C-alpha cells in the first residue's frame, strides 16, 4: 500500500513537473536536459528586456489577447511571455531586429500555450476555410462602436490556427509582408496572399473600411 501511494504521488508530482516545464520552457525537453542552469541575468539582458518592454509592451498585451481570452489566464500568459523574453535575451546576438526577436519569442510562447489546450486547437481553422465559409453577418450590418468592432475582430482571431493567427495579429500591428515573413518563416509573396485573404474577410465583416489599411 505505501508503495502504491508513493508511486501515485510520484506520478502526480510528475504531472506537475510536466506542466511547469511545458509552461516555462516552451516545450523543448531535450535542450532543457542538456542545459542545467537558469542564467542569473546580465546587465545587457536586463537593458534589452527594458527596451523591449518599453517599445513593445502594448503590442505584447494585445498579442496575449489574441491567444487567450480568459482575463486571468491571459495575465499569466503575458507574464510568461515577458519572463521568456527576458531569458531569451541572454542569447540575443543581433541576427534579426529586436522587434522581430520579441515577436518571435512572444508568438512561440503563446503558440506553446495554445497547443497545450488540445480541445481548443482541434477546432481551429485556416484563413482559407473562413474565407470559403458563408458570412453569418448581415452584410449591411456593420459594427457601430469600437468595442463591437473589436469583439468581431477578436471572434475572428479566436477561430484561426496558430500560423494564420500570427499573420493576422502581425498585420493588425502594422507589420509589412516582409517583416511578417521574417517572423513566421513564410515567403513575403505567401504572406501577401494571406493578407489579401484576411482583407477580403474583413471587408465582408467591417465593410469597405476594412481596406483602409492597405
Amino acid at each position, binding site marked *: 500500500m505505501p508503495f502504491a501511494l508513493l508511486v501515485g504521488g510520484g506520478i502526480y508530482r510528475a504531472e506537475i513537473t510536466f506542466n511547469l516545464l511545458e509552461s516555462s520552457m516552451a516545450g523543448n525537453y531535450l*535542450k532543457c*536536459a542538456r542545459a542545467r542552469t537558469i542564467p542569473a541575468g546580465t546587465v545587457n539582458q536586463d537593458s534589452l528586456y527594458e527596451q523591449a518592454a518599453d517599445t513593445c509592451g502594448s503590442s505584447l498585451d494585445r498579442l496575449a489577447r489574441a491567444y487567450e481570452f480568459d482575463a486571468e489566464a491571459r495575465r499569466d500568459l503575458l507574464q510568461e511571455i515577458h519572463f521568456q523574453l527576458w531569458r531569451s535575451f541572454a542569447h540575443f546576438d543581433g541576427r534579426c531586429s529586436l522587434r522581430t526577436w520579441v515577436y518571435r519569442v512572444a508568438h512561440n510562447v503563446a503558440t506553446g500555450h495554445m497547443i497545450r489546450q488540445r480541445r481548443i486547437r482541434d477546432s481551429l481553422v485556416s484563413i482559407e476555410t473562413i474565407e470559403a465559409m458563408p458570412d453569418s453577418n448581415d452584410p449591411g450590418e*456593420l459594427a*457601430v462602436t469600437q468595442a463591437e468592432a473589436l469583439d468581431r475582430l477578436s471572434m475572428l482571431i479566436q477561430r484561426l490556427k496558430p500560423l494564420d493567427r500570427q499573420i493576422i495579429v502581425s498585420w493588425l500591428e502594422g507589420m509589412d509582408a516582409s517583416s511578417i515573413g521574417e517572423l513566421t*518563416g513564410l515567403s513575403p509573396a505567401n504572406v501577401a496572399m494571406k493578407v489579401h485573404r484576411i482583407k477580403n474577410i474583413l471587408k465582408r465583416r467591417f465593410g469597405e473600411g476594412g481596406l483602409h489599411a492597405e
Partner: protein
Amino acid sequence: MPNEFPMNDPQSVWQNQPAEPLKMSATDLRRKALATQSKARYAVLFIIVVAIICCVVFAWSFTGANTALARMGYGLVSLSMIYGAYHAYKWTWPGNLPEEAPIDTCLEFYRRALERQRDYSHPWWRSGLPVLILTLLGVVMAAVGTEARNAPPSWLLALGADKHPLLNALPFFLILAIWVVAFLILRKKQGPKTLQREIEELRAFERENRW
C-alpha cells in the same frame, strides 16, 4: 455611423484597444526564474527520492525472497526504480529556455511542437511508461514466485476460494491489460492522424516558403 473611420479600419480598431502593458522588474524576473527552477526541481527531486526509497525496499525484499522467480521480480522492480530516477533526472531536470525557441521561425516552432506531441516525446512517455511496464512485470513475477510455494491463505479459503490467489487476481490483470491496450490504441487513433496531417501541411508550407 457604421462606415466611418476608425470603426471599419481593423488595424486602427486593434491598435487602439485599451492595453495594460506589463513591465517586470529585474528583481521580479530573477525571483520568478529562481522560483520556477526551484519548484520544478523539487518536483523532480520528489520523484527521485520516491524511486530510491522503492528501490531500497524492493532490494531488501530481493534478499528475503525464497524463489528465483520472486528474486528476479523484486530485482526487476528495483532496477526499474533506478531507471525511473535516472530518467527523471535526465529528462525533466529543469534547465534553460531552449536556445532555438526564439531563433526558430514561428512556422518551424509550431511544426516541431506538433511533432513532439505526435512522437509522445513527453518525458512521461519516454520514461514513465517503460518504468510502469517493468514495475508491473516485476510485481507479477515476485507475486507468482512468492505464492508458488504457498497454499491459498486461510481467510481466502474461508471466503470460499479454492483456487490459487493469483488466479483470483487474474481478472484484475486482465482488465488492466485491456485498459492499457485500449488506451494506447485510442490515443494512436485520435491524436497522431490529425497531427500528422497538420505536420505534413506545415512541412509543405516550409518547402514552399524557403526564401
